[in-house]
């Protein structure tokens, strides 16, 4: 079943994202300092922002890292990750409403459902690469959207799922401030899992596949299976984010499955820096905060701004924030030597 579709080398691709490599080379104390700063910001966030916005940022951070796992570390641009984010949101919502489980279990169920959905979609999508992969994932996500739209008895169609509870062993989490701290450990766990995947032998093989699929295959790695595994793991992490998003909003609408959601996830990653993992977290913070500010100020055409960011980032700022900073730091370090 090995087709020749992706045997041609990707040598013509643009240079692989360099952010990760630069960060990995940073001395140990820099990395620990960054980690400490990151954790401190995460712990402080709901004190500086509206807690509801802080919750959204956490969810989107997971989503972005999931997308970057494919885009930055496997060389696959999924333009249909809303399928996993949204499916998990719906499943989480339904489980929380009907089974009354504590929310972490509902989210886990949602993320598992997303991972299960990622198996057939991933199996079909990894048969193509590059731009075709983007189109195929986009198309399948649209199919999921249509199904949810049509399956009103379950999804309530355009009305959305209302009243998703935040039950957690009798604790009162209705205040977004406390809810933020309730989900923070789950989000950190998800981010740590992504980091672990990237820095595992498995992750190194993924990067090898990204840079030269033909050589990876020649070395005996089952390329399709690796890509599929990465796709499913990514679907699971995106599902974690989507499930938390559903509980956070106590409401699931069709928007979670819309193609604009998939696109937003990709731009969040590009803005933060492809292949930098934590860049996506930064990107999520910026985009979510900006959109909240825009809608708060009564600006109607949010797409105008997100679209504008899209265009500007792609034309002028392809390395993204994290990638640029890492490259700069690298250059400074090189000059000192």
């Amino acid at each position: 079943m090995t087709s020749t579709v992706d045997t041609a080398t990707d040598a013509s691709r643009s240079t692989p994202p360099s952010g990760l490599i630069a960060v990995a080379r940073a001395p140990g104390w820099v990395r620990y300092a960054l980690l400490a700063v990151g954790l401190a910001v995460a712990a402080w966030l709901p004190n500086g922002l509206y807690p509801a916005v802080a919750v959204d940022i956490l969810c989107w951070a997971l989503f972005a890292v999931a997308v970057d796992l494919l885009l930055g570390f496997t060389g696959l641009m999924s333009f249909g990750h809303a399928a996993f984010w949204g499916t998990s949101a719906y499943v989480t919502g339904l489980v929380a409403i009907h089974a009354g489980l504590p929310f972490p279990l509902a989210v886990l169920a949602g993320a598992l459902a997303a991972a299960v959905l990622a198996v057939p979609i991933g199996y079909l999508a990894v048969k193509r690469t590059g731009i075709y992969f983007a189109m195929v994932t986009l198309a399948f996500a649209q199919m999921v959207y249509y199904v949810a739209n049509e399956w009103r008895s379950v999804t309530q169609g355009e009305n959305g799922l209302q009243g998703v509870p935040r039950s957690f062993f009798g604790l009162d989490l209705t205040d977004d401030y406390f809810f933020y701290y309730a989900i923070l450990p789950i989000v950190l766990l998800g981010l740590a899992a992504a980091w672990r995947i990237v820095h595992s032998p498995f992750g190194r093989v993924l990067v090898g596949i990204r840079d030269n699929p033909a050589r990876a295959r020649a070395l005996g790695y089952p390329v399709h299976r690796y890509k599929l595994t990465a796709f499913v793991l990514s679907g699971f992490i995106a599902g974690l984010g989507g499930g938390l998003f559903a509980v956070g909003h106590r409401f699931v609408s069709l928007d979670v499955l819309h193609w604009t959601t998939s696109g937003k996830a990709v731009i969040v990653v590009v803005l933060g820096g492809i292949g930098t993992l934590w860049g996506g977290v930064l990107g999520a913070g910026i985009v979510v905060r900006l959109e909240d500010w825009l809608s708060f100020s009564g600006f109607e055409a949010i797409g105008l701004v997100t679209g504008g960011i899209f265009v500007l980032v792609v034309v002028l700022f392809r390395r993204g924030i994290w990638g640029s900073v890492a490259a700069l730091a690298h250059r400074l370090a090189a000059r000192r030597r």
Partner: protein
Amino acid sequence: MSGFAQNTFNGLVSGAFYALLALGLAVIFGMLRVVNFAHGAFYMLGAFGAYVLLTEAGVPFWAALVIMPVGLGLLGMALERAVIHRLTRLDPLYNFLLTFGLTLILQDLVKLRYGVQSSPYETPSLLSGSVNFGLFDFPTYRVFILGFAVLLCVAVWWVLTRTRIGMVVRASTERPDLTRAFGIDVGRWVTPVFGFGIGLAGLAGVLAAPMRAVNPLMGADLIIVVFAVVVIGGLGSIFGSVAAGFGIGLVQAWGEAYLSAFPIVSQTIVFVVMAGVLLWRPAGLFGREEAPA
């Protein structure tokens, strides 16, 4: 029997829109290696432009049918020069993202000015009424669309295969370096070809105006179906894209008619077909196994 003919006809008409859009995508992809996400937005602009021209300037359908494609084609050329051209040397994913951003911008610009509700566009009087084909009647306008689209596809095919321009374009598409070596300025053709593809999308939009609800979002969902269509046909193959366009139109119409117990079928059947094609012939029905784009 007449029901079957009716469904088949309607399928071919909606297939004509897929085919025109897929044709534009394929031509642009062939020359620039760019998958233009904004293709749906230009289709929408074609329809909206025709509507605005009619309601605000009294410009009739026939004039719009010329003005919009030409105008949008020029806009497309300007766009290619201004931004797209800067990214063609990079991974095609960047241009996909760029045109995605443009889609959001164009959509919201129209939304900001005209709102999201659908606007009606009257069928031109010359094409109102219906044509009788013995057993059944077809709306004249739809017959016109089908005829026009088929004619257009044949014309493009003729230009590409039988004229010197077409030869240059095909050569530049398949072996740009070799073509350059023959002293042909490949770069010269990139911008006009992009404009032409955009013009086709605009034309499809004008054609759609009297038949479909004109609103800012009309192109977005359509373009995703067209992506599935070109994956099925093989984006590298112009013939394949057009054939898949008509084919999917047919399959959708039949599915809608004969599986009406499952309303979801007509919307999702194209994706099911795509899944089947990916299993059976990953490169698309008419595509060649190729280097990753």
